[in-house]
């Protein structure tokens, strides 16, 4: 009984801690210059062409990043688990490095590369936000994506499934696509959406490298001139991320519901 009371207290305190700032922000974002309340700040997001374009740019980078991360991480994690389980710990440590190195240090390194390496390939690479930022966001997203995918692989009898598929005439690539990927679908979706959330929030590298047409930077810029719109944007992107996470849960849970019905 006493434990239950404590649980309620902790739950209420946590709710206050999280909800008060959110509700305050929502209240602030709904204020109008005249002193009343309205949805003007939210309409401004849709009608502001700069904001809309930056959102599209960031979504494009997010999709590129997620695809590249998954193409790198899924086969690597499978290969390590199947063929080199002894180096799994080493690889896990290596994937943490992007977290250990502060983004500002990484950005300084990238800026040095950008300034000192010429040639058409590098010029083409650094010509637009999408091509310039995607490789570095791939590095930033690696720890989260690797962990999510590796946890998914740990939850299935990977070796047995792959061997069963091969025994039935499937190639290794086909076994990966037809058997392993569907079995770790929610982990892969989780990795993709974590990558998306990371890209929609990353500001340090983009700002230092002067790629200012991304969504997070647009939010900050808007905040300087229109605080209400900036807060509305922050709330909207938060809701967007929640919706994505809910979609992940739904996608992961649909199979078990379908199976248990």
């Amino acid at each position: 009984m006493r434990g239950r009371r404590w649980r309620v207290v902790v739950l209420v305190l946590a709710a206050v801690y999280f909800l008060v700032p959110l509700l305050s922000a929502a209240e602030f974002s709904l204020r109008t210059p005249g002193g009343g309340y309205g949805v003007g700040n939210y309409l401004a997001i849709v009608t502001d062409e700069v904001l809309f374009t930056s959102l599209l740019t960031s979504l494009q980078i997010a999709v590129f990043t997620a695809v590249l991360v998954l193409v790198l991480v899924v086969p690597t994690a499978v290969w390590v688990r199947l063929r080199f389980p002894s180096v799994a710990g080493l690889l896990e440590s290596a994937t943490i490095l992007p977290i250990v190195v502060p983004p500002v240090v990484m950005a300084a390194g990238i800026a040095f590369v950008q300034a000192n390496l010429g040639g058409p390939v590098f010029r083409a690479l650094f010509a637009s936000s999408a091509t310039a930022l995607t490789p570095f966001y791939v590095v930033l997203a690696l720890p989260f994506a690797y962990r999510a995918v590796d946890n998914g692989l740990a939850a299935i009898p990977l070796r047995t499934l792959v061997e069963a598929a091969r025994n039935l005439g499937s190639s290794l690539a086909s076994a990966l696509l037809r058997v392993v990927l569907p079995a770790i679908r929610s982990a892969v979706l989780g990795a993709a959406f974590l990558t998306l959330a990371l890209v929609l929030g990353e500001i340090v590298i983009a700002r230092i490298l002067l790629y200012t047409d991304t969504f997070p930077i647009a939010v900050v810029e808007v905040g300087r001139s229109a605080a209400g719109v900036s807060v509305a944007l922050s709330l909207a992107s938060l809701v967007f991320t929640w919706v994505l996470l809910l979609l992940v849960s739904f996608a992961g849970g649909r199979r078990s519901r379908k199976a248990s019905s």
Partner: protein
Amino acid sequence: MTSTADAPVATERGVAVEFRELRRSYGNTHALDGLSLALRPGELLALLGPSGCGKTTALRLLAGFDTPTSGEVLIGGRDVTGVPAAKRDTGMVFQAYSLFPTMTAAENVAFGLRMRKVGPAERKRRADELLQVVGLGERGGSYPHEMSGGQQQRVALARALAVSPSVLLLDEPLSALDARVRVQLRDEIRRVQLAEGITTLFVTHDQSEALAVADRVAVLNAGKLEQVGTPQEVYAHPATPFVAEFVGTTNHVPVADGRITPGGETRQVRPEGLAVGVPDGLAATVLTSTFLGPVTRLVLTTEVGELVVDATSRPGLPAIGDPTRSPWPRSDSRTQIQRLAGNGLRPPRESLE
């Protein structure tokens, strides 16, 4: 006993399989040390041995999941040592549950046919047919986690058979199941194997399973073949001390003039080869008594050490702590003792040549 006497020839009912001087080493550890063994077309051969004896390694080498350090694997007379697993034409049931979790039972069974580009209608027909064969005709739409362990292994068997493989490989498929389901599925595997006439390698560490289901049993120890023979031969005429110890329970009994006598020559006698309650036998006390249904297993202390005796379950058997008049070789088992003595527990090399 000769293990490689039969030439590997394909027949209507199945194909021959042969391991020739197969070795698989991991550093200084020899998982398989010169295994030579032939499976006759259409037979079920149980590869029996303790954990780490190399039996699963042999099966994986046959399936193509591993590469031998040296030696050859032949299926139907063809050397498949370098052939990838996907092209070996074997069907395998794994020890762990191996059904694809996002596919239904029918989709699992049809997977191999899909890989062989068989059309949807034929895939469905074959999947339905095989699910009927394993008694799961109504469960085609079920997902693996909706099924019990026994049902999952039945579907795995149907999946392995769906592609009409040349060889069926069973890697301890019953070890994760409870006792009753084990026996049921064991008998079912045998029934299906006989019906399909498919050459089958059944890897197990469970001697009762091997003896019950196999046409022949091959006993492996430390990567080497100890004996190959029918279940009756392996049980009644163990070729080596290891086989005598591993297959069944064995008493080491000093025997002189056909009687248990301290100081006599040591013979190996099965528990059912001894009797209790013999009036002029040795004095013994019952240490434990285990009712096993038709027989009761008694562990007795005697002046020649502990002896295990399987007595027909009946009223009046001595209970724990009771003195009894000595275990005694049964009259009908003396021949067996003599035969065991005659075998002289030859060394493995000699017994195989």
